[in-house]
């Protein structure tokens, strides 16, 4: 069997004496779209922060393509081919939309800290950035400061920056949060396109989106995984339904999806 894209072994995180992640074991196979769901406060975002290097694990290990990345810094993990988006929009507000995307690919294109090359002469970067702007539907916003985009546009840009570097593991933290129905539909199509042939990990509250996109779903409750399975079997899983009883609305939504 091939090495999974991401493997977590007994991953733990506590803040002071509060345990947020309490021993998570998980394997996310190459090329799958994997969703992590769970009630509010279950630790989904914390799990994301641990994998992407924003937080350092209190215990356990994280492997990216078989390599131990636990405790590495965000930029080191990014250079190994993992790129993530944020739940709260996290862009470069004073730079143009185009430059936001271009900044997302400078490192992976091999330009690093170069101070002897001019970015405007790097035609490959310009073309690739424009292609991504086309893809995320912001081509006509190219030259305006990213900070003045509408909320939905900033969410799209957030994804654009995340995929710009061509990472093969993409992590999206609630990509459709706060979007209207039609905006969500567009976002789902976008995510489907950009995750083609890549490993996608996402946290999402919208069950419609989850069951539409995911090949596999993990359910996180109080810092522990209670199930990891295909969408059909998750829907029928007794433990999952019980965990969601507290939030009846989401349970209903799940039954409908």
């Amino acid at each position: 069997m091939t090495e999974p894209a991401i493997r977590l072994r007994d991953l733990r995180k506590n803040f002071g004496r509060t345990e947020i992640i309490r021993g998570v074991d998980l394997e996310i196979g190459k090329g799958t779209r994997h969703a992590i769901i769970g009630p509010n406060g279950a630790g989904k975002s914390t799990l994301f922060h641990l994998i992407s290097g924003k937080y350092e694990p209190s215990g356990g290990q994280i492997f990216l393509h078989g390599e131990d990345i636990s405790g590495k810094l965000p930029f080191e993990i990014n250079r190994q081919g993992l790129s993530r988006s944020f739940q709260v929009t996290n862009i470069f507000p004073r730079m143009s939309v185009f430059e936001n995307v271009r900044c997302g690919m400078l490192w992976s294109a091999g330009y690093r800290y170069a101070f002897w090359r001019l970015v405007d002469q790097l035609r490959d970067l310009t073309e690739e950035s424009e292609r991504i702007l086309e893809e995320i539907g912001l081509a006509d916003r190219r030259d305006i400061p990213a900070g003045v985009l509408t909320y939905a546009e900033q969410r799209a840009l957030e994804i654009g920056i995340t995929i710009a570097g061509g990472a093969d593991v993409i992590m999206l933290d609630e990509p459709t949060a706060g979007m209207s129905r039609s905006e969500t539909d567009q976002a789902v199509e976008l995510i489907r396109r950009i995750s083609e042939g890549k490993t996608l990990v996402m946290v999402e509250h919208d069950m419609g989106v989850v069951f539409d996109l995911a090949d596999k779903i993990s359910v996180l409750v109080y810092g522990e995984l209670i199930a990891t399975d295909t969408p059909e079997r998750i829907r029928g899983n007794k433990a999952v339904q019980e965990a969601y009883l507290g939030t009846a609305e989401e349970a209903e939504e799940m039954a409908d999806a």
Partner: protein
Amino acid sequence: MSVIATTGAATTRRATFRRLAVWLVSAAVLLILPQIFTSGLAVTVMNQMGIAIVFALSYNMMLGQGGMLSFGHAVYFGLGGFFAMHMIDWVDQQLFVFPIYLTPFMGGLFGLFMALVIGSFSTRRAGTVFAMISLGIGELVAALSLILVVFFGGEEGVSGDRTTGPGIFGFNFLQDIEVYYLIAVWVLVAVLFMYLFSRTPAGRMANAVRDNPERAEFVGYSQRTVRLISFCAAGFFAGIAGGLFAINYEILTEQNLNATTSGGVLLMAYIGGIGYFIGPIVGAVIFTLLQTVLSGYTDLWVLYVGLVFLATVLYVPTGLTGIMMMHVPAWRLGRLRSLVVPYLTMVIPVAMLFCGLVGLLEMFHYRNGAPTGEVEMTVFYVTVDFTSPLPWAVFTALTLAGGYLTRRLAPAVAASFQAATSYDAKGSSA
């Protein structure tokens, strides 16, 4: 698709051409300026401006481009200057042969080296921590300059003779005008390279880290390394400015690296506008004019510079360049003319406010320092007796009336500005 591609290429070519034109025009202006302003004083002022331009732009590589607020940038200016001054002395003592006109580059290298040493720990964080470290280092080096006499020359500083090295094209920099052309060439080259730096991957990521250091880390960049590179580049160009200072004045003292000089460069960059590449250039020119010309008229010039700075921070944080740039939309829409009348109506109240305030300040200042028996002074070419209540009453009235009218008229002017710059104003519904 191919149509788009070709128009794209044409646009790029036109932009490149326009950019090239800007540099050529700048070079021509630098060449012609001494033919227009021929007096010795003018040349002195322009030399000082050139040095200030390089220094202020180097400062903005950190503040405007990299988001690092430094209170100790004069350290790299001063250290570069001292090193260049020693180079000039060594050449004079015939320790080795080195062309004097290249010493600013050596000053730059020394500034770069010091920035690398200090930046290695100060750029870990931006914000308050960075600002405090810069302040501490500034004080430390200023204090050291009175202790390490070998390098800093104690209180009298280090001086030398710039004319002894091998010349170039028959120039040996005996006269100020020769130094002017030397500085002009250095300014052009330094400004060009600072501009180009901002267009490199390292320069672009400096902007990204300024905007959002966290996100920069998640696209593969260490915020610390990005900052360190900008910091070193800023140190390098500050050192070049220091080297130019050494050639121009042939002396460096503790004054050139202390907190006053560090504060001065902050004022220049901020008044000019830190959000624009040319902002610090504008600021350096204005600041130098105030410093040299205004100081000839009044002792209070520092106070006025301070007031200009305060007004900038409070009312136009984008600086003087920002004010100019605000008018670009109106200019594009061809409505700049509609602003002439509203602006003219503002001239009188603002002038009243200005004259009243300056009059009061000057009288107050003069009264405190006047020799006994002396009761007359000159304000705005008018001789007044500061013991009589009349001038006090006139200036107070001017201040109050000017202030009141300015406040009354400001909303109307702001409204005309809005109308001139908004796209949906009448007449342009298309």
